[in-house]
């Protein structure tokens, strides 16, 4: 990866690359879903919703999506990281770190002092990535219960 890495807000023209990257990682092609995400996070976020891409040599190498949420779960405004993905061929080159740093900087601009995310505990790859960025277990504990008819 020789071209300079740049993190910027997503553009509509990036969507095919984002959809293809997501399909590579998840195995699912979700064009309608990404159009909705683009409308919600890509435009009109008023500084609180962010959909960023990392590009090098005009090639999209990854994306991150986040949002500032106020007083959710009784907590002061916090920046949530909802999704982050990096082209498997571009991993270990600082793309994820640059994306997270870009999102963090935008959160900081609006006064947010905590960045938070939620992951399945068996998602070791992404857990390790967030740990490598200095993130640790937070003050909240997610709880859940299986509901519906007993099986």
């Amino acid at each position, binding site marked *: 990866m020789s071209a300079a890495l740049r993190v910027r807000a997503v553009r509509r023209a990036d969507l095919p690359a984002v959809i293809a990257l997501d399909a590579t990682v998840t195995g699912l092609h979700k064009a309608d879903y990404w159009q909705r995400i683009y409308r919600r996070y890509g435009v009109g976020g008023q500084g609180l919703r962010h959909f960023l891409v990392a590009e090098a040599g005009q090639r999209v190498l990854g994306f991150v999506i986040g949002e500032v949420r106020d007083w959710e779960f009784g907590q002061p405004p916090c920046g949530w990281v909802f999704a982050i993905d990096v082209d498997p061929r571009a991993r*270990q080159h600082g793309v994820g770190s640059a994306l997270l740093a870009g999102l963090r900087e935008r959160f900081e601009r609006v006064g947010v002092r905590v960045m938070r995310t939620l992951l399945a*505990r*068996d998602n*070791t790859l992404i*857990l*390790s990535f*967030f*740990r*490598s960025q*200095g993130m640790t*277990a937070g003050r909240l504990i997610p709880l859940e219960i299986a509901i519906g008819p007993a099986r």
Partner: protein
Amino acid sequence: MRLQTNSRLAIYAVLEFASRPGELVAAAEVAAKHGESPHHLAKVLSELVRAGIVESVRGVGGGYRFVGQARRLTLLDVIRLFERLGDAAPAGADSSPEERALGEVLSEIDEHAIATFGSITIATMLAAVARQRRA
């Protein structure tokens, strides 16, 4: 949460070696730094050598060096060489409801411990150590 002495010592040794890539480090130096006997540390190091995490070079100027991948090797990988985590036998069918209920709680704690140790690499730990030094 407490780790067994061997696990803690192994982590300290791996961090020491990994922080000085390529350098041969004397076991006595690591033992002295952490207040452990060289004899005790030697047993721990032999396990790390067997696991391919460090290698030993004998003779004058010899010592140990890290040969693992700091960005891949996790705390869990090291700890599991010395102790079992999260594999307590589930309460059997003839156990009491109290035993089964407590077993569920302990399993929940174990699963979180495993996820935590399994997601922290040696490289991440080295960064955390550097942060502690600066603090």
